[in-house]
């Protein structure tokens, strides 16, 4: 009984504090998803235009981002960019977090959008071009509407990856959920296990609906089998 009262006390004390962290996690992940998706959408479309140098360039960008840990990318954006002495590259920690996470997100989204476009049968494009649509019109009215539907299930998975990646942001002092938890642990080191469990539950409440949505979307819109590893 006493044990229970003690834990309840912790929950009671920490919840507002952790909610603050969750709110920051939420804000950063939403903004990163938004900008990352925009950038990824553009790059994904460009990648399918069969312009060789452009394709090479985008692939290099993807290799760089996919081939290095997000933590390293974050360090580069936060610690290395300012050393270029270009004033607008001198990010505060929040901007650095959003910029690096957006770039990271865009690498997934690019791949997803390009795969989805390639998954639209060539007959759709031929039927568009043969009535006289320009390539842009074929994309706008026929190919993209079909492709974007297919991106919904994997996009939800990316969203979850991004949410979980925000935990890393604690290293540059962003008071997101993990960071808030760590601060709490410093105050109550005896309850480290319990507090980490609490943090996990908070993440779960954010990620679970998104994952459920992803599952639902997969049955609704179908899977294009993109490997997000």
């Amino acid at each position, binding site marked *: 009984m006493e044990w229970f009262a003690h834990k309840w006390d912790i929950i009671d004390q920490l919840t507002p504090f952790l909610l603050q962290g969750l709110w920051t996690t939420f804000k950063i992940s939403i903004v990163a998803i938004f900008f990352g998706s925009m950038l990824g959408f553009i790059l994904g479309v460009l990648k399918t235009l069969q312009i060789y140098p452009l394709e090479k360039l985008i692939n290099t960008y993807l290799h760089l981002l996919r081939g290095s840990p997000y933590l390293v990318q974050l360090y580069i954006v936060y610690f290395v960019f300012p050393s270029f002495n270009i004033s607008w590259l001198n990010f505060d920690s929040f901007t650095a977090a959003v910029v690096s996470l957006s770039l990271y997100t865009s690498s997934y989204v690019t791949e997803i959008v390009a795969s989805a476009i390639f998954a639209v049968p060539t007959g759709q494009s031929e039927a568009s071009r043969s*009535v006289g649509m320009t390539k842009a019109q074929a994309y706008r009215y026929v190919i993209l509407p079909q492709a974007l539907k297919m991106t919904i299930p994997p996009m939800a998975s990316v969203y979850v990856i991004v949410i979980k990646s925000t935990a890393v942001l604690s290293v540059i002092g962003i008071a997101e959920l993990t960071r808030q938890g760590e601060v709490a642990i410093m105050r109550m080191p005896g309850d480290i296990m319990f507090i980490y469990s609490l943090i996990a539950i908070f993440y779960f409440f954010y990620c679970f609906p998104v994952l459920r949505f992803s599952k639902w979307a997969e049955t609704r819109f179908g899977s294009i089998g993109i490997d997000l590893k």
Partner: protein
Amino acid sequence: MSDMMIRIEKVCKTYHVKSRAEPVRALDNVTNHIDRGEVVVIIGPSGSGKSTLLRSLNGLQEIDSGAIFIDGVSVTDKKTNLNLLRSQVGMVFQHFNLYQHKTAFENIVLPQTVVLKRSRAEAEAIANDLLNKVGIPDLGGNYPSMLSGGQQQRVAIARSLAMKPKVMLFDEATSALDPETVGGVLELMRGLAADGMTMAVVTHEMGFAREAADRVIFMDAGAIIEENTPDQFFDNPQSERAQDFLRQIL
């Protein structure tokens, strides 16, 4: 000045595929023409270049050399507005290729509003007329996945006709259909022919060729081997290859 709708001059096309040792000569110096209002049926064994020829007529397939003119306009000239030209050449595919995310009705409306900039109201009126004409007035609200092959092909034909094309190209339009729906689509094509549409038709339906064609072209290995009126061609084929081919399919 001339009544030539399609002019094909010394057209060559070779496919180079990495996985194959030998390049494939799909069109080997093909020269021919199709007159205004003429219905030409192209037949030949698989891989003889029929689709490649048809697809080169509206520039869907680029050719290596030679020239193609549609109603006097060059398909191969870089200065030609190929999109405008394509809007005047209808193409019907073996697998229909209806826009999967649009209803039958919207399939017919979309190219009109996007390419021809017709008003929505005008495009809808035309779409309704055409759904009637192709015999499925009540199915406009269905998505392609909810239509049979025959019904989808009718929509595809209506979609092409909505552009008021000068020419219609059919690439095995009935090959993917159930036997019982083939007849209806052929009937529709016969009706178009009777209305005076200029048509190039790749088909394995010899009955259609005999009845509806003004002329039959027989292709093999990328070349036109023989051409004649249907009666002459079917009753009295000249080349050995055409004789072989007809023996195999009839």
